[in-house]
């Protein structure tokens, strides 16, 4: 266990950041080289990391038995530097967990037909529903109201970044450790039934969403992959989602009727 307080020297900023990641204990309680297996999106993944924050972050997905991992994730200098530059929060432990997500998302897409989406995802009647919207529009508020309405009949899959895998021709939504500030959701999965675009409106109303806007929605909310191969695979999966999944537009104000409208028209039995 090493926690060294590191003095900042005025040279080579990139090298400084790498040293900061590897050695500095200034911002954190301790740094230790950790290697654990986690079950995420139905895979056993060996993840190497250093920060206690990351340990706590991933804890609910930790596999405590001896298992052979399907693959492993570790971070190199380039990964840390890239994430540091992209991250709004310039603190190494947050940067580490974001860098792990980026690496994981890319491996899962490259090798396992699994994409990452920004959405609040719930499970009802053994089916998964994704509620999407730009940040702050109220998708989490809406799923929270649905949870209040339906109680134990509704389970959270993931309130922020669920994975969607394509197995044969079945799309399955999986939870992930990246689940929003209230940490809602866990290692839960269900087949994807519908995707709902949440829009603020005066009245509570559900409409079917047309194919063009459905495509726009998916492109906007998909995790951004920098690689050409990965993006090409993303589009292939988006193509399948467009044909297999129901798309809705949910206009809602924030009153108590909103979840009822959403439940009656989307979650419950027959779809219009």
């Amino acid at each position, binding site marked *: 266990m090493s926690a060294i307080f590191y003095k900042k020297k005025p040279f080579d900023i990139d090298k400084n950041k790498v040293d900061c990641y590897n050695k500095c204990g200034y911002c954190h309680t301790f740094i230790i080289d950790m290697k654990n297996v986690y079950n995420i999106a139905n895979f056993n993944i060996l993840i190497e990391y250093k920060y206690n924050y990351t340990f706590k972050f991933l804890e609910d997905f930790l596999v405590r038995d001896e298992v052979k991992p399907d693959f492993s994730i570790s971070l190199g200098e380039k990964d840390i530097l890239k994430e540091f530059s992209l991250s709004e929060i310039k603190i190494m432990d947050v940067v580490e967990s974001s860098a792990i997500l980026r690496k994981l998302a890319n491996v899962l897409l490259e090798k396992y037909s699994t994409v990452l989406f920004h959405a609040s995802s719930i499970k009802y009647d053994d089916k998964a529903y994704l509620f999407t919207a730009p940040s702050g529009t109220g998708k989490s508020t809406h799923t929270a109201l649905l949870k209040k309405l339906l109680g134990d009949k509704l389970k959270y899959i993931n309130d922020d970044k669920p994975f969607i895998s394509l197995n044969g021709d079945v799309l399955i939504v999986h939870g992930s450790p990246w689940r929003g500030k209230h940490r809602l959701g866990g290692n839960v999965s269900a087949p994807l039934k519908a995707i709902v675009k949440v829009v603020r409106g005066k009245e509570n109303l559900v409409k079917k969403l047309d*194919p*063009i806007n459905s*495509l*726009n929605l998916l*492109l*906007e909310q998909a995790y*951004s*992959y*920098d*690689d*050409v191969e990965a*993006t*090409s695979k993303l*589009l*292939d999966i*988006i*193509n399948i989602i*467009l*044909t297999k999944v129901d798309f809705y537009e949910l206009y809602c104000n924030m009153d108590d009727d909103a979840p009822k409208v959403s439940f009656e028209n989307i979650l419950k039995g027959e779809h219009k």
Partner: protein
Amino acid sequence: MKIKREFILKKLNENTENELDVVIAVGAYAKNINGYIKLNETAVFLWNILRGGATETELVDALLKEYDVKREIAEKDVKNIIAVLKKIGAIDE
């Protein structure tokens, strides 16, 4: 002229009434396009030739060979499409 590999063409909803040919840009080029660009049949045809590289004249000739269209129209279409592709930065000269 050649299409940069960071620009991807995909056919979505194939064989349905919502069939769509879209172009997406990756990485640093993503900001050049607002989401995606829709291509019509002619544009897709020319895009696929440009993938391997072609001059403007070669593109016009290919159009004339494949489609029943007058030379002036073909030349105009090719010019228009090249202009759009250059505008979004998809072409390597």
